[in-house]
């Protein structure tokens, strides 16, 4: 009796799964979207999904691609490597022609092989760890500037500001450690000094001991390479302890929340950022449409996600076929594709040829464009 209920339960669950797996509607051109729609990064993921869907509806309204209408299927990677592989398999088994997606580098990494084995062309709008470059089997294209580009932007700013002694703080995750390490290598390689290289634990509130330690090393600049939530706390406590010199934060900290939490302490903080909608004149129409459709403001990666989908459609059009190899070739041959976030061309490593990083500065409780 019990065994039968059990069997029924498992059978039911399996049936549910099979249905989910086959829920993909027969359509002209299937493109997969892989973003985190649940979990800690769900806000960013849903924002990207929105932007891509907006791009698709525009393309379809204009007649589609090669006479076909685009249909999207979303795979939720939950910003978690295990769930990401499941999501990637789901998209592959749904027979998608191409995939646009990848927000968390850690979750995107193991999926590269799955898409690579299936020969599926992929455009990665956000994830930009330098590890993705080495792990790329050749079918994936990164349209966000990589960590290297951010390091160059950062180092240029420090040089211009006459910084000699630099303190770097990261958060012990792949993204921020990567950025911190690359900055240290570059900075010491130029004959300068990194006087402190520290790590902060996620979610820890009290940073006074760290702040005192950093202050005692007398740095000219502090570079926070991780996310806004803990960054705000570090900035606040640095200022509270009387540190008055330059503070800069990486693109993970580009959020109005940082300014809200850190309050007055954040005034004058520099932030390196990928191009977000509000600083892109070319994105005005997009931003208006986005607000109209989704009743909210486009977030940090909306513009790149939108460009990613448009680029994929463009590449398929240029390839003139839905043959995956031809699409990959077309993507590689992209020359100055005019995205709303800037022109896109690729290096031989499938990364963005020209960095699109901008520098922001906090003024009056708002991020404003510097330079």
């Amino acid at each position: 009796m019990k065994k039968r209920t059990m069997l029924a339960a498992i059978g039911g669950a399996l049936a549910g799964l099979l249905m989910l797996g086959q829920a993909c509607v027969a359509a002209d051109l299937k493109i997969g979207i892989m973003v985190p729609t649940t979990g800690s990064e769900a806000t960013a993921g849903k924002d990207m999904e929105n932007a891509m869907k907006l791009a698709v509806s525009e393309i379809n309204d204009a007649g589609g691609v090669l006479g076909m209408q685009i249909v999207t299927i979303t795979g939720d990677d939950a910003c978690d490597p295990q769930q990401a592989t499941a999501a990637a398999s789901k998209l592959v088994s749904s027979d998608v022609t191409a995939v646009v997606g990848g927000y968390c580098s850690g979750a995107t990494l193991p999926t590269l092989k799955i898409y690579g084995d299936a020969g599926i062309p992929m455009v990665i709008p956000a994830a930009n760890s330098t590890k993705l470059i080495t792990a790329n089997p050749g079918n994936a294209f990164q349209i966000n500037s990589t960590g290297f580009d951010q390091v160059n932007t950062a180092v240029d700013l420090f040089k211009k500001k006459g910084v000699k002694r630099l303190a770097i703080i990261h958060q012990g995750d792949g993204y921020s450690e990567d950025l911190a390490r690359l900055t240290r290598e570059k900075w010491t390689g130029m004959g300068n000094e990194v006087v402190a290289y520290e790590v902060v634990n996620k979610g820890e509130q009290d940073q006074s001991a760290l702040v005192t330690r950093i202050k005692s090393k007398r740095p000219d600049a502090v570079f926070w390479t991780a996310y806004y939530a803990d960054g705000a706390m570090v900035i606040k406590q640095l200022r509270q302890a009387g540190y008055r010199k330059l503070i800069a934060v990486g693109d993970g900290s580009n959020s109005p929340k940082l300014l809200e939490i850190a309050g007055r302490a954040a005034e004058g903080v520099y932030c390196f950022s990928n191009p977000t909608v509000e600083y892109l004149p070319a994105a005005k129409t997009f931003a208006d449409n986005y607000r109209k459709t989704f009743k909210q403001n486009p977030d940090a990666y909306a513009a790149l996600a939108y460009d990613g989908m448009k680029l994929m459609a463009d590449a398929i059009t240029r390839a003139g076929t839905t043959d995956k190899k031809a699409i990959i070739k077309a993507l590689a041959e992209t020359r100055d594709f005019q995205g709303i976030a800037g022109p896109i061309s690729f290096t031989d490593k499938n990364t963005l040829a020209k960095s699109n990083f901008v520098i922001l500065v906090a003024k009056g409780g708002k991020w404003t464009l510097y330079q």
Partner: protein
Amino acid sequence: MSNLDIFLQQLANGLILGSFYALVALGYTMVYGIIKLLNFAHGDLYMVGSFVGFLILSAISGLLGDSWAAILCSMVLSMLAVGLLGVLIQRVAYQPMLSAPRLSILITALAVSMVLSNTVMALTNGEYKAFITDLGYDGVDIGNVFVTYTQIVLVVSAAFLMVVLYLFVHKTLYGKAMRAIAIDQDACRLMGINVNRVIALTFFIGSALATAAGVMAGVYYGSIHFAMGFVIGLKAFTAAVIGGIGSIPGAMLGGLVLGLLEAFGTQIPAIGTEWKDVFSFGILILLLIFKPTGLLGKTEIERM
């Protein structure tokens, strides 16, 4: 900064941090002392307390402004509210489990902790909330060491709460009952002590103290988050163990010792900040293995 200045500044840092740890550790130690339960959910009560304080403060700031009076008022109200929540948790989740195997009650405590943190996560969408009070950074220079008035007020109020607790436990009848139950529950029942009521009172006080620490942390650090209870819960447990779990003065001492250890630990050049947690967990593990009674705990011959 000279070495002496760094020393004094870290001393101040350690004392401030230590008084937070001590407040949270007190709840751990009192609950453990009275029913021998490791209340995993205690750190989450700190977090819930912080959020309740935030809500109350936003509600009454229209009336009282962002003044110290408003903060004090919201702190007292949230201590009451979360104190009652602590009693509710004890009644619903722990009371029925008291005679169950140790393993079951530990897992229950873990489940309660997860329910609390995930409820707040669902309610806040997992976002950080800015706890804006705008108290400013004014303060006094003591030598080259800078201490803000906010920091002074926080340490003084933490000390005040601890003194009140100490007097309560040692000078009142309820306090006496509490200490008696910790020694022998059955005998107390035979002596006509309302054991359940005293246990509930213990949960109330422990949760209220954690809430006080939570509201103070919100005011001081300026941001609150559903997961903020996890780290401090562990740290407070470590503090309680250092002082000798079950001992109230021990928890206060342990909190301060841990705060100072962390402040000075980061100053040791060989141990970078990346090894800081290995350092504190290492201390905890070694202490549990070699001196489980802590600094002020009594020797206890008991297994499981």
